[in-house]
């Protein structure tokens, strides 16, 4: 992992020696360069101090503008944003959620930052946008990626497709199969669903 000085060539060692400000480095032989670099290293104590600092609060706010939309559970998504509003005309804006082509939410928000958990329809694909109204038109400031809202129940589709994976081509070859859902299996699936929801599995550490 950590590269050994002995394995480095002289050019690489010279780059490191430059970082340490080792004088006369260009005239040194490889062995002397290595000795000088090792001597020039800072004590572990100082590093430990840096490490302790790194475990403290995160000093830096995320500098880039961002808007995240994440799935949490059936019908619930998490939205979080931060925008540098210095060059915007206003900090008063709107958060819109769009599912398909339909607008499903429009909330007044501060454009600069915010977060929240929002209830939406299960199973749809949604996208979040933050912007503001200008002369009656919505002006987009930032948009999220689209996500699928988790669904907490089975679908009632009946279409059946079958296939065989061609692992070399990484494709699915479609096949015709006559198997149909049986009443017994439908009953079994309902039982499985109920059972799976009921079981509390042990996790370590315990959830």
């Amino acid at each position: 992992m950590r590269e050994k000085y002995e394995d480095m060539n002289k050019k690489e060692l010279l780059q490191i020696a430059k970082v340490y400000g080792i004088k006369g480095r260009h005239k040194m032989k490889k062995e002397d360069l290595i000795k000088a670099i090792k001597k020039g290293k800072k004590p572990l104590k100082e590093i430990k101090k840096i490490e302790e600092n790194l475990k403290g609060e995160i000093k830096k706010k995320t500098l880039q503008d961002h808007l995240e939309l994440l799935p949490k559970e059936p019908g619930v998504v998490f939205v979080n944003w931060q925008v540098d509003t210095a060059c915007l005309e206003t900090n008063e804006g709107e958060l819109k959620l769009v599912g398909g082509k339909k607008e499903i939410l429009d909330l007044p928000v501060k454009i600069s930052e915010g977060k929240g958990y929002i209830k939406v329809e299960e199973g749809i694909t949604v996208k979040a946008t933050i912007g503001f109204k200008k002369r009656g038109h919505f002006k987009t400031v930032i948009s999220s990626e689209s996500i699928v809202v988790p669904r907490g129940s089975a679908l009632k589709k009946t279409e059946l497709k079958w296939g065989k994976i061609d692992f070399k081509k990484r494709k699915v070859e479609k096949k015709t199969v006559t198997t149909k859902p049986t009443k017994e299996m439908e009953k079994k699936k309902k039982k499985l669903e109920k059972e799976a929801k009921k079981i509390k599995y042990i996790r370590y550490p315990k959830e």
Partner: protein
Amino acid sequence: MNKKGFLSIVLHSHLPFVKHPEEEFFLEENWLYEAISESYLPLYIAFTNLKEKSAKFQITMSMTPPLVSMLQDNLLLKRFNRYLKNRIELLKEEFSSTAKGEIKELFKFYYDRYQDLYRVFNDELKGDLIYGFGELFNEGLLELITCSATHEVLPLEINDKIKEVQVYLGVETFIKAFGREPRGIWLAECAYTLGIDRILSKHGIKFTILDTHGILYADMPPVYGVSAPIISESGVAFFGRDPESSKQVWSALEGYPGDFNYREFYRDIGYDLPEGLIKKYLHPAGFSFDSGIKLHKITGKVPLNKKESYDRNKAMEMVETHAGNFMFNRELEAKYLLGIIDREPIMLAPFDAELFGHWWFEGPDFLESVLDKVYNFSNVIETINPYDYLVKYPVNQISEPSTSSWGDGGYFKVWLNEGTDWIYPYLHVMGQEMITLAKKYKNPTLLEKRLLNQMSRELLLAESSDWAFLISVGTAVNYATNMEKFHINAFYTLEQELNNKKINLNFLEYLEEKDSIFPFIDYNIFK
């Protein structure tokens, strides 16, 4: 004779990457030493016992990149040997001095056990568990699979490029450790959402495992329930958890590990020993913590100080009873399922590997007994790995699995909630910055390259699901919070040094030694 069904046991082996060269004794490093001595080595011994008895069996096990990296780390392995030696010395002193009767016998039992573990680890395996499991993999008994790079919950990762890096590094780490491509992957926390299949397919992954509802709620309802895999359009097979098989072992209410004759997890001599012995053998500062030496059985619903002594023989009797019961129930299940579907069903039971041995002390013995019994005595079921089931039944229903995880509640609230949601904006922005830097630095100097590689490691370690999990479940909250912040701050510190062209080589070298996961990493993977 044709069997009526297949049992597929899948063990997920994972620990977060924890390495602290800055301290000689660091308590959280014990997670690894406990897992090796209580789970991974006993499981290896159980599998090799079966091999020596010529029992043909199939079991699947994931080995995550952080675990693989730690099992190959010289410092951690050296400290693991110290961990074993200290316990051997402590037990020797205990059983040869004050202890009497059954307690003395138990000290002797543990002494022999740790001696044996030390011998297997050092003499048989030469300290290389990866080699040991790899041999079983090559012999076709153990199907090893990989996992995403740092166990990130992929549906909570916004950037597709980062998702891809997670899968790519999972595959690369596996190839470097075991010499060939993995056929399967364990998605961290069995977490899935639309589109992940395309990334898996691109990197040659043939199958993965989801919780029951990931299959049952698929976009085309599965004709076989979870008794057969479904396949996605991009050519990845998805197997679902069979709750019947899982609950007997893992249910908090009715699982076998709760039997009163099994060893009690919470009563540990680490809390009873005099400070002098703790300082001498367990921790120089004299902290009380789990030593792995536990002398009592569950006994019943009684306080810890009322627990009775552990009876190893009685516990092993229960192992046999429970293994027989487990096989019997799977046989009944297979017969029933074969009556309602037109193919031999697969009953897939996924577990955390650390459940066996660390949490449920007798777990590896139970697995050994189940695999032995199924091979020698069952005319109804046999064990199989998911890939071989696909070979046997190559034609499967095409359907897109549902967004899901195997965490509490079945989705993502364990990792995304009021206590942890501060993490994700950082991961998002850091990921974007890493991609930008990878594109920008086309011809870096040697030092810049090393720094960019280390930034990649810090980003990936910050993405680990473990920190959010520990914060949510209230275990090691301070440590998990500190580590999350450490990786984020380390990333930004390095970035600042890069931008200012003022690289602190000493600090970089320290990080390279401490967060030494993926020694082969090249930041260009983020391009």
